């Protein structure tokens, strides 16, 4: 079961499950062109995305690990940097939890039809 993250106790507690943070990261990944799920299909949303995103809570900070595939022709360092920035921005905006790092593993290349 997910360990909930406690945000504050002035007006009550807010708990954010790790799965929610994973889902936010996956949704952010969907918005970056050229990013695919490790199997080569479009990055899934919701519960299915959690298979490709691991969330670790380190005190009040978050560390995310993603496994992705990239479209052939993209410059990987630039694409990954865009992805990391987008995820960090979205997670921090929606949860108010600081993101320590977004580690990305590029597991394969996705070729357009007829190239693989």
């Amino acid at each position, binding site marked *: 079961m997910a360990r909930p993250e406690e945000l504050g106790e002035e007006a009550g507690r807010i708990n954010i499950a790790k799965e929610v943070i994973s889902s936010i990261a996956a949704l952010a990944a969907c918005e970056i062109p050229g990013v695919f799920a490790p199997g080569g299909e479009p990055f899934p949303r919701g519960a299915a995305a959690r298979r490709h995103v691991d969330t670790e809570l380190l005190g009040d900070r978050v560390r995310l690990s993603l496994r992705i595939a990239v479209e052939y022709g993209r410059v*990987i360092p630039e694409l990954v940097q865009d992805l990391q920035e987008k995820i960090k921005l979205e997670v921090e905006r929606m949860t108010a939890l600081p993101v320590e790092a977004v580690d990305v593993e590029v597991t394969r290349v996705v070729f357009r039809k007829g190239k693989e």
Partner: protein
Amino acid sequence: MSFLLWVEATILLLAAVLAGLGAGWVTPEVTIQGNTLSQLTVRTALGILAAAFFGGFVACLAIWRQRQGLAELLRQPGPRGQVLIAPKTVAQLASGLLFEELPETSFRVLLRPKKGGLLLRVFLRLPKEASIPEVAERVQELLTAELSRRTGLTVQEVQVVVHSASSR
């Protein structure tokens, strides 16, 4: 993959130990299907078997070490977190570049770590009329420049191995 390699290494080590113990404890004579083998023969056979299994175990360790070296090389720290480009990804990128440059050629790409960078070994099957030095130079230039640009990794060396020529 790494798990299977460790299973294989463990089995080979156990087999080496068992064969080695068998060589040490073997009875004076062994009879197999009516043929009597001397203690020395059985010990020698088991000793060779133990050495072979141990050699397999050492080979597994060497493969594991090489993979670890490659994984470390492909892991790049960044301001927002680490980026790990899997060896398969680099090989696919290299294949894509080669396919664009040499559509008539079949090829295979292997990766090895070398001096803080990558060593790429490209096995080519060229068309019969192709000029090997010219193609090799094109391949080396292309992979060194484009692979570095697209992955941020340093390509130290590109070795081109032409293993055959096709009639087409």
